[in-house]
């Protein structure tokens, strides 16, 4: 990803391309081009089929299901028009679900990216053992969502968990980490931030590593140091990685399921039921098979993810320095 390695590779690419076209031109360019295109389409076929089968078709099916009632087995029954959407948007429950989703995204994306940034900047300090620390911070990346969630569920156990054990040692009262409606979302977000930290640290430290040494040296010679160096040099040069992380972790947060399922099951009192978990509850959980409502909610999720991505590309990207 560094400037040095990128240069020669691109030059090599260009070189072969020019050589090939130069060799072609005297002969018959058009048929060859046609054959190239045909070949290109041929290579695209497998991914198109997969895309159509696993994305386009289910998407169409979701739209279809969202316009129908559900029979005993979750299949589409009668056509109900937009009734599922109307019921959804007029229910207080769904409003709460949307708010929970927003809360979860904000509580995971911002601390997740900022936290990783702080860790990476601190790691830049030339102290001994940086490599070990970097590996240590990247370690959560190696945990699966299920494993990490089960570990956290034990840490958060009200009666015997480590978290309340520490609070007890400090003489502070117990906290219902996953059982208090006012706390559960924070506990869930904390777990998610911890799980995301490893990946975020990896991406950002690669980004910092790719900042050319001469740029940093020049800045230092010009008298930049500390926060100024961070603000004027490192952050702008790190903006592609930061942007990437914000987009990716936002989408990841919107899709989070495992930690919610294992730690809180959307409770207590619905306080951690995000959109994805609500879809699951309607469609599959507890013997429910209300695929009509679940599909309508899935469409809302689709629109939200698309909108988020659109906004991030439209607004944030202008601030990104490549």
């Amino acid at each position, binding site marked *: 990803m560094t400037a040095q390695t990128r240069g020669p590779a691109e030059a090599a690419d260009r070189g072969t391309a020019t050589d090939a076209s130069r060799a072609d031109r005297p002969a018959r360019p058009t048929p060859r081009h046609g054959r190239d295109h045909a070949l290109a389409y041929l290579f695209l076929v497998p991914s198109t089929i997969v895309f159509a089968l696993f994305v386009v078709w289910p998407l169409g099916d*979701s739209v279809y299901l969202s316009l129908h009632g559900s029979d005993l087995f979750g299949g589409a029954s009668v056509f109900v028009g937009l009734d599922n959407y109307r019921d959804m948007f007029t229910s207080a429950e769904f409003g709460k679900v949307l708010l929970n989703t927003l809360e979860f995204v904000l509580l995971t994306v911002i601390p997740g990216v900022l936290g990783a940034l702080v860790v990476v900047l601190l790691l830049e300090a030339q102290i001994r053992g940086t490599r070990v620390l970097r590996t240590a911070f990247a370690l959560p990346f190696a945990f699966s969502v299920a494993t990490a969630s089960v570990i956290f569920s034990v840490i958060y156990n009200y009666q015997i968990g480590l978290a309340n054990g520490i609070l007890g040692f400090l003489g502070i009262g117990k906290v219902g980490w996953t059982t208090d409606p006012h706390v559960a979302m924070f506990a869930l977000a904390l777990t998610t931030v911890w799980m995301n930290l490893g990946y975020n640290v990896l991406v950002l430290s690669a980004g910092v590593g790719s900042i050319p040494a001469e740029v940093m040296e020049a800045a230092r010679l010009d008298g930049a140091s500390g926060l100024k160096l961070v603000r004027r040099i490192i952050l702008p040069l790190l903006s592609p990685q930061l942007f990437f992380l914000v987009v990716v972790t936002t989408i990841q947060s919107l899709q989070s399921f495992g930690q919610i399922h294992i730690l809180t099951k959307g409770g207590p009192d619905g306080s951690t039921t995000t959109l994805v978990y609500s879809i699951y509850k309607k469609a599959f959980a507890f013997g429910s098979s209300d695929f009509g409502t679940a599909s309508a909610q899935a469409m809302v999720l689709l629109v939200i993810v698309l909108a988020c991505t659109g906004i991030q590309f439209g607004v944030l990207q202008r601030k990104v320095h490549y």
Partner: protein
Amino acid sequence: MRSGKFRRRLAARALVGAAALALTATMAACGGSDSGGNSTDAPGADALKNVKSPVTVEFWHSMKGANVAALKQIVNKFNAAHKGKIVVKPVFVGEYDDAIAKYKTAVQQKNTPELIQVYDIGSRFMIDSKQTVPMYKFIDKDKWDSSAIEPNIASYYQFDGKQWSMPFNSSMPLLYINKDLFKKAGLDPNKPPENLDEIEAYAKKLTNKKKNIVGFNAAIYGWYLEQLMATNGDQYCNDSNGRKGLATKVNFDGPDGVKLAQWWTSMVKKGYASNTGRTTDAAQQAFKSGTVAMELESTGELRDFINSAKGKFSVAAAPFPRLTGSGAPDGGTIIGGASLWIDGIGHTDAQKRASWEFVKFASSPAIQALWHTGTGYFPVNSKALDEPTDKAWVKQYPQFSVAVQQLHSTKPSTATSGCALGVMPQARQAAEEGLEKTITSGDPSTAAANMKASADSLAKPITDYNKAVKK
């Protein structure tokens, strides 16, 4: 150029991610044709006579850990005894809830398994799905003697007096006691509390905040509310607990449910009980740690509790408490667990018959003794308790005799058969939400409103379900 490529790649990733979400609520409804009979009648023994190659019985179950080991043992014994004729293939399909969700998809795809284990509260749905051959048809056809099946267990799966499925694994809730904590508090573990008020009085003495010891704990699990209502002789849903017709209303917002919510909330508020949430795992961990004096749990946990407590403290089992006083005369505990259902639609007579052969085998005294001692579930065949292996086991775990007494002292009644409601899993979940909301609010006076809101939230699912069934 690089930024463009990078952007496109990101955009593609975002799009794929977004679109994949739409998958979450989509079921693949591939077409399929009937492979065999469309009937739910029971074929006779001759259905297996002309079979040339072994008949395969796919058996969907939700057993894990020690339970799945015992299950495989039973299946292997059966397959060995029916070599060349029948092959039973057990398939783990996730928790009970997941199994039902998968079964629903299978019905749509016309691809159901031959045999499926379904939890107690899924029974009404299984009947209404109209996919299965009711067990009584096989019993009648073979004039099979079903009297050895524990009547209290069998009654859960009887509708209009007829046996629809065969109980397989059965459990009941008990009050587990940490004997050491009882003795330290000057209480006699042989005189356990009998109802909620007594539990509170005991818990007050047992709780020691400095030592992080609470008198009582239980998962906020709807099952316990169902049980407590039954001990009071009350019905969880109308229409004789849904046994006479399709129930249209749940009753947990009545005095029983409100009483439990108020009691539990004040227990937690006073610090006599800890709230470990709705997952049973968290509650089990708490009891095993030795910091909980009394805990509500299933008989199925008995072995695990005793083994985990080894060297730390000793465990006693007491009868499940009554809601008030000494309970109603026709009240008692409901037998939970799961039963076996034979699918009829889309299966050949040979397959149905082969499934029945396995069901008979699985309910025989010897196999039930093996099952009981290997898992801790009740033997559904009362004769199993006379088997030598079973007698040795009960001797090793004397606490289990409490469960047997509880089972035999319960009179089968409308209340103790439990509520048969099509949306029973959702009802249990709604009840839990009402209880949890009250407990976490710390205000017992909100109990009535919360339980009512929970009960009201079921109106639409119940109406929709009943409409779908009648159509």
